[in-house]
């Protein structure tokens, strides 16, 4: 009898890129649900727009680059990018803003750099930063967390009109619905000389951090822990990032509690938890060694604090991630594990 020749190993585990990406999507569901609950239909509409544009961009780029369509569309990497970016956008962002962000992410940051596995920068964060720098007004128009079922909530159709036609419903004044994010509020008011305790009493804030926001963070934390549990994400990156953020926040908080928000506020605010579990853990652009991942995560955490506290933006996850993306190859180079049998030290 004649047989086929294939090299070892002849068995492997049932894992695939598509499966990993789908897990990331599943893990985002609790956080997305919380966001939708507090900020309304806009979140979901953004997700749909982003997904559609991402798939379209992916298809076009794969075709142009002559790559197998079915294989790469079924890896869900474009959808993950779309969701990561959509979740970070304001709920009433105009459709073209979302589309432009996705275009920057998928076409420029991903495919122009060689596609899946070759991009040096996190595509979703590239898209986000392009929008943040180009359209600061649109990017900072956040809704006050008056979610579904509440008197101030926009209906599905009203939301669609805002997003696609910039048609604001007549029954509300713009100011009644939109406002600064909690981090933004903290930043502006500390600038005005108020103390942290005083600021924290304003209605924007909830139990730990921003009202509504803290529940979304809890949702992302749950999903993120599941990712770590299933080993889809390495625990070292979120641990490093949240640890780094906590340590630097604690130092400043202990030095001057009236001027600097407590560490738990920082961890629970903005995109810290979402970023730690979903953004920084993008394996393509992160460090790959065990020690390197801790350092990479910690670097992001520290940079987030520095940008929040001393930079020009209320939150700094996107910039921090991109900055550490640049550092990842160097971190990898200097954190190689000791090879089995190599001399210690």
């Amino acid at each position, binding site marked *: 009898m004649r047989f086929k020749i294939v090299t070892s190993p*002849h068995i*492997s585990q049932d894992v695939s890129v598509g499966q990993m990406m789908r897990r990331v999507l599943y893990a985002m569901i609790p956080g997305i649900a919380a966001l939708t609950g507090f900020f309304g239909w806009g979140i979901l509409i953004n997700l749909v727009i982003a997904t559609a544009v991402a798939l379209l961009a992916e298809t076009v780029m794969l075709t142009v680059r002559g790559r197998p369509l079915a294989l790469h569309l079924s890896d869900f990497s474009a959808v993950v990018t779309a969701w990561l970016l959509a979740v970070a956008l304001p709920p009433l962002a105009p459709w073209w803003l979302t589309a432009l962000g996705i275009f920057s992410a998928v076409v420029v940051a991903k495919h122009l750099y060689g596609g899946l596995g070759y991009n040096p920068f996190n595509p979703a964060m590239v898209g986000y930063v392009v929008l943040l720098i180009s359209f600061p007004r649109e990017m900072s128009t956040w809704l006050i967390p008056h979610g579904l079922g509440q008197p101030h909530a926009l209906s599905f159709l009203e939301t669609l009109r805002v997003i696609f036609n910039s048609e604001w419903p007549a029954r509300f004044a713009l100011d009644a619905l939109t406002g600064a994010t909690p981090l933004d509020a903290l930043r502006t008011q500390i600038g005005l000389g108020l103390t942290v305790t005083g600021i924290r009493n304003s209605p924007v804030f909830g139990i730990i951090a921003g009202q509504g926001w803290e529940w979304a963070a809890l949702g992302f934390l749950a999903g993120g822990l599941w990712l770590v549990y299933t080993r889809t994400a390495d625990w070292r990156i979120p641990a490093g990032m949240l640890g780094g953020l906590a340590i630097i926040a604690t130092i400043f908080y202990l030095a001057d509690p009236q001027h600097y928000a407590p560490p738990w506020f920082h961890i629970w605010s903005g995109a810290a938890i979402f970023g730690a579990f979903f953004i920084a853990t993008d*394996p393509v652009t992160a460090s790959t060694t065990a020690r390197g991942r801790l350092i990479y995560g910690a670097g992001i955490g520290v940079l987030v604090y520095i940008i929040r506290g001393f930079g020009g933006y209320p939150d700094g996850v996107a910039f921090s991630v991109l900055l550490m993306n640049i550092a990842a190859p160097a971190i990898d180079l200097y954190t190689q594990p000791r090879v*089995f*049998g190599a001399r210690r030290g």
Partner: protein
Amino acid sequence: MSRLYPFHGGLKTVRHKTESNQWPIQQAALPRWLTVPLRQHIGAIAKPLVQAGDRVLKGQMIGQADGYISAAVHAPTSGVVAAVETRPVPHPSGLPDLCVVIDSDGEECWIEHEPVDYRALHPSELRNVLRNAGIVGLGGAAFPSAVKLNLSGQCEHLDTLILNGAECEPWITCDDRLMRERATGIVAGLQVMTCLLEPREVLIGIEDDKPEAIAAMAEACAGTGYQVRPIPTRYPSGSVKQLVKLLTGKETPVEGLPVDVGVQCFNAATAYTVHRAIDHGEPVISRVVTVTGHVSQPGNFEALLGTSFADLVEQCGGYREGVERLIMGGPMMGFALHSDEVPLTKAANCILAASAAELTPAQPVMPCIRCGACVDVCPADLLPQQLYWHARAKEFDKAQDYHLFSCIECGCCSAVCPSHIPLVQYYRYAKNEIWAQEKEKQKAELARQRHQARLERLEREKQEREAKLRQKAPAKTIKAAEASEAGIKLDIEAAVAHAKPHPPSSISSRAEEGESITDYSARTPALPVAEGGNQEPEPLSSKQDA
């Protein structure tokens, strides 16, 4: 329970042990034809001692170990040598090799053999007995055991002798059955090894999914001081360096051997062949092999070396429908065979007939997403994704910077890769390319040396010719020529001195002239002396000695 020292990484794989380990070892039927490869071991191929038409007896040496790292080969049964020629053999290269084909007479007529009193022998004599019995590592590597049983020059004193009964690869159960059924024989063989190596302790590592084997070995070891150590079932715990680490906590140095840290390791089946060789005088002519997978009746067989795989599969009731791949060894490290018309060798511990159900379906390869799953499972603590990156880019020097040669090709990285990249294949490719480049370099270096030697020879010959010519020529002519040449030189120098604006003092001028003359005259007669010095440096030194 003694302490274990877990190695990094590894995998929980599927086991598939019960398919073949539920029944005792069966005696395989005597085939009509036996094709015995002369290279069943690492090292030089054995020198054939027989030719077509010779009658051989069971156990008769038909191939002699050629050099230190080589092993003898014996006739597995009695019969007539039909041919000594190249035949297909089970080897990853797929290349045929020199084999002795025996037409068995069915008599099983043994050559004269008797037990050896190993305690009465000098260690080197005892090692010779084992060498001549063709004993090699039966775990798969087939390294000549006598070499490993000689510590001189390798290590002062052996701390630990390890018997490897881990059998970590899925599907394989030949060592499991052997330990269950022939534990006393294994321990007897171990005693011979202990006698040669005199280790401080003897440890027997067996994965804890083989409780029967552990119990049987523990019973057989009673009173010997040998310790049976159950180890967690985690592939590749049976890999030598990993097992040594697991049991002793010692890491074998990169590019080193366990003996460098005072540990030596043998397979359980190897110890059994030592017992057969010493206590029965029988060389290695058979082995226990697992025939499993998609065959009707999987099991373990004690089969004569040279029995064809097809014969063995036949004795398992043949293939079931849909066998796609025939693997020698386990599914993690074994290699696929073109054909089942290849003979059983000492290295063959398992024949795995795999259908789609036993294999992972081939999946399209995706780009590496640097997820690091491979890093987590690598038992050599490598960065497989970096090795892949550089191997793929043919940056072999960088691959070596990432310790390519520490890779044991266990396959863990490939098995967990979500992008389904055949990582191990890339590493093998890179290693082969580097070896090929090394060979090229050596060849070039050799060519350079030869060229250099040739140039030197030509120069020497030329000088010899000149020297002969000079000796033949009358001495007067030479002197005359010298004088005239010196005269010309003097004239020139005088002219130069005269032309100088501030001529040096006459003394120094004379000194210069004198120097130049002696210099010149010294050069010409110096030639034959130098020549003589080149040819025979001895006379002078011998004179000095005298």
